[in-house]
């Protein structure tokens, strides 16, 4: 499976304290290396490295997110920072 480096830019109502730990936990469950590059109540940037299919799965999981956040959109761009 080809590996990739991508940035997920997540936008929505992301202010809940649970969100960032949840993001890192979900990335770890998928076996993805990840670093949070930016986080505020409306936007989170996370750089990910791993197989494209698993980054797809990360996007799917984040679209649902934990129950106390609302993810409006996720943009994916190539990243070179990992």
């Amino acid at each position, binding site marked *: 499976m080809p590996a990739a480096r991508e940035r997920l830019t997540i936008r929505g109502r992301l202010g809940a304290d649970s969100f960032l730990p949840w993001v890192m936990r*979900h990335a770890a*469950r*998928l076996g993805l290396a990840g670093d949070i590059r930016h986080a505020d109540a409306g936007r989170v940037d996370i750089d990910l490295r791993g197989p494209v*299919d698993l980054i*797809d*799965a990360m996007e*799917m*999981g984040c*679209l*649902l*997110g*934990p*129950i106390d956040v*609302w*993810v409006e959109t996720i943009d994916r761009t190539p990243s070179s920072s990992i």
Partner: protein
Amino acid sequence: MTVRHQPMIDEWYPVALASQLPPGGRATQLMGTPVLVVADDPIRVVTDDGRDLPVTLRYGHVWTSLGQPAKQLFDIPEADQPGRRLIEVGVVRVRCSPLRAVENFLDIAHFPFVHTDILGAEPHTEVGKYDVEIREKEDEVWATKVQFYQPQAAKSATGGITTDYMYRVPAPTSSVLYKTCPARPGEWDVITLFVQPLQEDLCDVWPWMALFDDETATTDLIHFQQMIFLQDRSILENQIPRLLPLDPGREIPTRADLTSVAYRRWLKRHQFTYGAQLVAQ
């Protein structure tokens, strides 16, 4: 009934087949509330304490609401299209969350494993890429450009074909499936799943169809659909957790689950949470 369920209380739900209402009516329940569908002219739906609920008759069914629906029941234009046969399949009781029943209906990936050699077959198990969107104007979930190989896509099919699908969710416990019409290329057969939420983990499923098929006997069409839903029932009744999680929980959704993800996002956005699990377990 708690306030947190108010958005779903204000929706329409099927509670009976209008054509098969016995003279004594149908005693049933809706979201845990006992109701009686009364065979008056016009048909009424009343609660135990004598409250008359709003009623609409559409797609062969009696629809009602415990609250005050903000809009009319969703439209299925094909129901009025000349030449279609409108098939009332009846009712299947399933011990599962009403939201689980709809989510299962939206899931194509299970076809080869649950409806083996009918709606799917190995090795044709891959779900290709398709489009999913929440249509803002209609406020509905739509999945389009779905394709899947099926050994016997419909009762009228004589061999395997690649079947085109579209899925639509116009209400929290109703889904409309459009699929390739073997008898009339260029048209879509319409198969619906109308789910009556009895309790958070118990529902009556009322399938209904609008087909172009002048050949197949009605009883055969009904038996075909009932067979499909009975196969689903054994899966649905053993799903864990019983309520539909609105976050990923222990599941790892993938791109093949895109319709399910969009459905759950739409439920979450509208706080349609009767039958949903709100805390990951």
